[in-house]
């Protein structure tokens, strides 16, 4: 079986246990990417008509563990905001939404690194409206795909930072959807 040996040679020189200052640095760097991934997840859920409800874990912790929170540096307010808005879409439009209802949208895998977020998702919905020239069949359909978002950081005159989604690539399994609803190309 082929291995990424060249990558392994570089990583094997790193110590297993990292110094605390390096760990704190990596945690701080990762925190921003995690927030981008969270906001991207919420945005995609909203678009698909299946918004995430319920409180954020942080808000629940604020209410329950108020005393401990005063000394917890992890709970500091971030000094940046995230705006997703209308990124430039480079790939397939989400025209499947026009014909589907009762959408259950799930993100199955996500990665977030260096202001780039990739989300693999699956949809379970009902074909209840005309879609791609096919009248409503009221059948269950399953669709999977992937959305990639690239963010750009800018700094406002007051020093606050903003991450703005610049580019978006969405790919989804069009042939499988056509097969499920009985459409022909």
């Amino acid at each position, binding site marked *: *079986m*082929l*291995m*990424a*040996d*060249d*990558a*392994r*040679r*570089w*990583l*094997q*020189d*790193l*110590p*297993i*246990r*990292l*110094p605390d*200052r*390096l760990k704190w*640095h*990596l945690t701080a760097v990762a925190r921003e990417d995690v927030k981008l991934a969270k906001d991207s997840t919420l945005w995609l859920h909203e678009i698909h008509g299946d918004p995430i409800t319920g409180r954020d874990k942080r808000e629940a912790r604020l209410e329950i563990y108020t005393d401990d929170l005063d000394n917890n540096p992890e709970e500091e307010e971030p000094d940046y905001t995230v705006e997703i808005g209308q990124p430039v879409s480079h*790939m*397939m*439009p989400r*025209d499947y939404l026009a014909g589907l209802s009762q959408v259950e949208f799930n993100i199955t*895998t996500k*990665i*977030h*690194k*260096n202001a*780039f977020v*990739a989300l*693999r998702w699956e949809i379970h919905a009902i074909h209840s409206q005309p879609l*791609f*020239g096919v009248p409503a069949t009221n059948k269950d359909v399953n669709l*999977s*795909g*992937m959305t*990639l978002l690239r963010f750009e950081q800018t700094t406002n005159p007051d020093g606050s930072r903003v991450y703005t989604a610049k580019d978006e*690539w969405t*790919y*989804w*399994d*069009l*042939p*499988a959807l*056509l097969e499920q609803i009985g*459409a*022909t*190309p």
Partner: protein
Amino acid sequence: MKLFGRKKAKTDEDEPFDPESDEGIIGYYHKYVSLAETEYVKFVSAHLARLHEPGGVAREKRENDFIELGMPRTYLEALDEVEFAVVDAVPDAATRGRARGKGHFVTRWTVSGVHNRPLAGLAPSGQRVTIEGATFTTLRDYRIRTEYTYWQLPELTRRVLER
């Protein structure tokens, strides 16, 4: 304090740094991780390129034993004179502790080929077409384990969405 137990050979391209300072340790770590991620990207890109060679899928499955998910690569059966190119690759490799060897990689690519056989319900056109796609690759223990591939044929998308 010696962070690593061996001496590093100095080269002209190395920037001077102090491994005892915060910057030194952090810069050193990021340098190694960056080098590792570059190698990871090369490894995954080479694997994807081999997949698009004639007989490549069967050969790679034999040598790598990975699970192929997402959309099947039916375009390989429909196109001739296939040319594969990586547009962009984003690595997210685990580098801390025992998670080393794991990683997720997203690769955006294009495949062009002569459309000589039916593809996704479209009759062969005999023209060179370009397919754009992305692959989500997962590595465990430095080996490719799963791959999710999604692609689109612009002509098919255009015809369906224009209805």
